[in-house]
């Protein structure tokens, strides 16, 4: 436990001494704010149109719409940000040779992975919190339904958790951070866009595609539905990523 904590702490500190943390936070906060206002603007215009043409029979759930759009956008933004959080986890240790220190002390492979993964999850939580701050104005002038928001953020965390595990695994495979970033982005993007093939596929292929797509599992959460099958999907995926990372570290000690 001491080992996991030590590695977690070092990793968090290293995020915040390098410019990565600040660049990522700034960009994330800027994009969240930007999209928040642009969606707000769109909804206001739609409401005004509705009022003008006298179709005001059905009230529009303004905060709900803004929140859903914002979360969908955030899921895309995370595709770009997660690879930057995971690229260094192992690749940089390999590059600097500190992996030689880590693997020749009593630190276990599991502990090394756990400490680093927890650090990246911590950063993800910080990102999600900044996103929460962005939507706080919605509570100023109304009583938005907070339950879908809670489930939306839970989904977002699970979704990020999966991407982080994939990125962590890829980071164990190379000592080049650029390669790690590109490969993680590529794999995440593939899991993200695979959904678009769903419409043209049929039968088993369709259900496989629907199951693999990271996005399709997020939609229910954003609608306010917490479905255990989606939780299982994300947790399984994250577990597979971490397990592969574990095997990848182990393989360095295998006899060929």
């Amino acid at each position, binding site marked *: 436990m001491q080992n996991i904590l030590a590695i977690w702490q070092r990793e968090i500190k290293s995020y915040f001494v390098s410019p990565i943390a600040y660049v990522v936070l700034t960009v994330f906060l800027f994009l969240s704010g930007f999209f928040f206002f642009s969606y707000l603007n769109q909804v206001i215009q739609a409401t005004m149109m509705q009022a003008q043409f006298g179709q005001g029979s059905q009230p529009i759930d303004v905060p709900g719409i803004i929140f859903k759009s914002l979360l969908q956008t955030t899921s895309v933004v995370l595709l770009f940000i997660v690879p930057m959080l995971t690229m260094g986890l192992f690749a940089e240790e390999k590059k600097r040779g500190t992996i030689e*220190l880590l693997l*020749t002390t009593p630190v276990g492979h599991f502990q090394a992975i756990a400490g680093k993964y927890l650090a990246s999850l911590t950063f993800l939580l910080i990102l999600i919190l900044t996103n929460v701050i962005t939507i706080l104005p919605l509570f100023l002038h109304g009583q938005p339904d907070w339950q879908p928001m809670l489930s939306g953020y839970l989904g977002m965390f699970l979704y990020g958790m999966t991407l982080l595990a994939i990125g962590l695994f890829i980071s164990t495979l190379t000592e080049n951070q650029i390669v790690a970033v590109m490969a993680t982005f590529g794999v995440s993007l593939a899991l993200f866009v695979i959904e678009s093939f769903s419409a043209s596929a049929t039968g088993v292929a369709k259900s496989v595609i629907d199951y693999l797509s990271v996005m399709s599992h997020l939609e229910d959460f954003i609608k306010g539905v917490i479905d255990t099958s989606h939780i299982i999907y994300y947790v399984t995926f994250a577990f597979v990523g971490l397990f592969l990372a574990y095997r990848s570290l182990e393989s360095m000690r295998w*006899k060929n």
Partner: protein
Amino acid sequence: MIEVEHLSKVFNGRKAVDDVSFYVGKGEVLGFLGPNGAGKTTTMRILTCYMPSTEGTARIAGYDVFEESLEVRKRIGYLPENPPIYPEMTVDSYLNFVAKIKGTPAGQRMAQVDKVVEECSLGDVRRRIVGRLSKGYKQRVGLAQALLKDPEVLILDEPTIGLDPKQIHEVRTLIKGLASTRTVILSTHILPEVSMTCNRVVIINKGKVVAMDTPEGLAAQMKGAERIALIVDGPSEAIREKIHAIEGVISIQATDEKEGRPTSFAVECQLDTDLRPVLASTIVSQGWGLLEMRGVSMSLEDVFINLTTQEPTEADSSRR
């Protein structure tokens, strides 16, 4: 304390370490000497459980490095070839981190860090960022890290590389001081290092052990020959032939040869025959100019060069 038996490591079909065996007793300092690419780092990485061997076994304090890796890792301090530093950390926080992952209890951590800082003379830079320190200081930070938690066995890969002469002296003194209570294996490609710090030397070349002895023993082993340096003005081919024909001469090699200029030779002769008068008269009688003649006694340096520049087949046969 360290037992290595028939260790081999193959990288992509090439043997980097080839059937290496040696033993280091408790409290001994073993010098692992060899030119670059000899397989020193690879051997040390196997000993520290960083990579597995292809064949053979290694045991540290009775534990197999492959089967009982955790027990081994608890007992060693390792300084890799490149100091494993996190450049963004301060010396203090780095050493604290290493103390933590080595499992030092929180209560003893401060004292442990203070101790290695003292031992490696890092007091002045404790609060500095490791990445901005000079190469020498980085090396000492790496050494300090290896000393944390007082390991029984120290494995140091080229501990004095990149240091200035004063620092080299300090580190050697430090290693000597450590040796009384610990078992140390250190690699180097610099000769004087082993004669100064080690009880025993293993010379390794192209993955194979070519010699194993005390530094004095090795020097004595090679004392089967005397060497004379010559500078002669004349046709070098003819000079070589003529001198080689003299009785008592084992070999003659041109050490510096340029067209139209006097050639330098190194002549190896049998012990206790002073060939200098014969050499001089032979050269003069041929009408060549004898510009210089000097007796050179063989040093550990020569032993090393001799052992590591021989053809592999010769090294093989001398070992068997």
